[in-house]
């Protein structure tokens, strides 16, 4: 029997889901091996239980917390999909400011109408079995994990910095081109796509297990930005992870 697969979105941009619909060349083949039973962005159907539940987005409101508990209870395997689900992603930047101030900036005196919590990773609320990192998650990463799960195998975990793949791609270091790049502390697995297109690494795949913060800040400040600005850059996708 084909595994029953479902996709759920929480606080996010739904770009990771879109990236699945953008698997135009593989979509029909994927459907031969799994049965998609719930995918609100693309279909009406709903189901009671799932073999694999893919979760996109951060947990950032009381109703999100209830919903993720409910999905976890009904899922055999639960996968966090993309940066928002894995560590809070850009959403977690709001956690750096007092919550009342944040609500007031956007909703003014009507702030009390809208409940909000700090933006949290899925794993801070329920058990997460696997993760697909990145903002957005890459289609290759997603396919690799899906194939492993369908075959009943363990999926590999990547723990080398983006710089490794950047060097393998024979890119010139962006620091030599006057940019400030987070490659040295960021978990790779993305083929260094941003540096390969001439843009600095934003840290979207999260931090290495043991990031060298001091070294990173030293490199950044040596290349012309203030310590304050360097810290901010580090926090862009990793406000919930960085420990300074």
């Amino acid at each position, binding site marked *: 029997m084909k595994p029953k697969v479902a996709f759920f979105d929480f606080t996010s941009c739904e770009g990771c889901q879109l990236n699945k619909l953008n698997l135009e060349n593989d979509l029909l083949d994927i459907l031969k091996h799994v049965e998609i039973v719930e995918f609100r962005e693309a279909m009406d159907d709903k189901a009671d239980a799932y073999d694999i539940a893919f979760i996109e987005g951060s947990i950032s409101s009381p109703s999100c917390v209830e919903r993720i508990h409910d999905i976890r209870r009904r899922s055999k395997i639960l996968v966090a999909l993309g940066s928002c689900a894995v560590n809070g992603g850009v959403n977690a930047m709001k956690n750096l400011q007092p919550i009342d101030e944040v609500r007031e900036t*956007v909703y003014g005196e009507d702030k009390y109408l809208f409940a909000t919590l700090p933006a949290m990773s899925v794993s801070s609320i329920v058990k997460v079995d696997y993760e697909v990192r990145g903002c957005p998650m890459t289609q290759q990463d997603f396919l690799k994990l899906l194939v492993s799960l369908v075959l009943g195998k363990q999926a590999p975990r990547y723990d080398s910095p983006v710089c490794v793949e950047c060097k393998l791609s024979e890119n010139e270091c962006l620091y030599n081109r006057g940019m400030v790049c987070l490659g040295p502390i960021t978990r790779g697995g993305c083929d260094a796509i941003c540096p390969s297109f001439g843009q600095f690494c934003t840290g979207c795949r999260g931090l290495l297990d043991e990031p060298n913060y001091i070294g990173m800040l030293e490199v950044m400040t040596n290349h012309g930005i203030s310590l304050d600005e360097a810290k901010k850059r580090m926090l862009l996708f990793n406000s919930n992870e960085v420990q300074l």
Partner: protein
Amino acid sequence: MSQDLNIKVHHLTRVEGHGNIVVNMKDGVLEKAHLSIVEPPRFFEAMMKGRSFHEAAIITSRICGICSLGHQITSLVATEDALGLEISEQTELLRKLLVNGATLQSNVLHAYFLAAPDFLKVGSVFPLIATHKDVVLRALRMKRLANDIGDIVSGRAVHPITPVPGGFTRIPEKSELVELKRRLLEEALPDGIATIETMKSLAGAIPQFERETEYISLKHPDEYALYQGDIFSSDSGAQDVHNYLDVTNEFIVDHSTSKHARFNRSSYFVGALARWNNNHTQLVPEALEAAEAMGLKPNCYNPYMNTIAQVVEAVHVIFDSVRIIDTLLEKGLKNEKPNQTPTRYGRGIGSNEVPRGILFHDYTYDKKGSIVEANCIIPTGQNLANIDDDMKKLVPEIIAKSKEEITADLEMLVRAYDPCISCSVHMLDVDFIE
């Protein structure tokens, strides 16, 4: 149907984001008919504070995956306006090509994957793989090509990489553009023509409903405005984008985490149908022929026809993309560096037409190039009041139908706007209260 009606659609499907439809009629009097937006708030305006101009577009692209290119380009325009960064003609052409690609991808996604299942009375595109395989494959091909425009020119269609303030971090190769042009002519064009035929055959399923409203879009003197122009209202004419706050007049309602907007009336329409009504004479002749074939006429007051206007635009952007590539190749691609040396600081406004309508980004920078204040006004947010007004007119007109049919018509109405709730916050459930 009795004189009492309660509908609640919780987390409407086949739309981007989370919304509920709530309708409540008692003794024949409509008490409530609205789209309730329940997407968790995301607070981007607050997160932008203190961020460098290098990061602004990276952050705002994450407002929405489907509209990431639109947010990114609009963000760049706002930053360049604030910091006085001039861009080259090549940068502008490449951006217009990207905007065309994003419009093609989004309009095709909506017409085939999100709206067409309504016309064929199925719950998603997946059953259509068995019954209409050639049509699904065509839709996938068109989407792939549109996404390839994004991948080639911007590095990645979802959350693009290369567009930065002042230009691009990488310029595409000549050979890549030549190949894109070939595929646009040999693949996209025949697929586009076949799409017109498909939509023509489905047009009978489009509900007959009309409500004339105010239509707002950009307008450009020289072209069908998608990238920059003046704000144009069908009620009161043109004005500079810097006056956008006079147009949007956002207000908060308790049934929506997304703010609503109004200008000359209680609501206004943005998106493909507004662009069609305001600017149809500037479309390429082939797009005008497509409109005629599918029964879309100026001016059209049926919101369900928004999907058809999107297909018309898909035809337009295929031809326009070929024209842009020809111009780029004729002028020769130059390996330009982005212009990132600010000449001033202060406030800047960016506005573009993204697939779902007119989008505004408004940033104020300090002299270090950090954001002091940010405001983003999103097309779906601007459409919410108009959707509510449509529902209030529609429900009494179709009250003789069964509850299931009414619910289906309401869901289809909301989907026709191609709402993007992640953007507006996120969107859709229908509540019939009984």
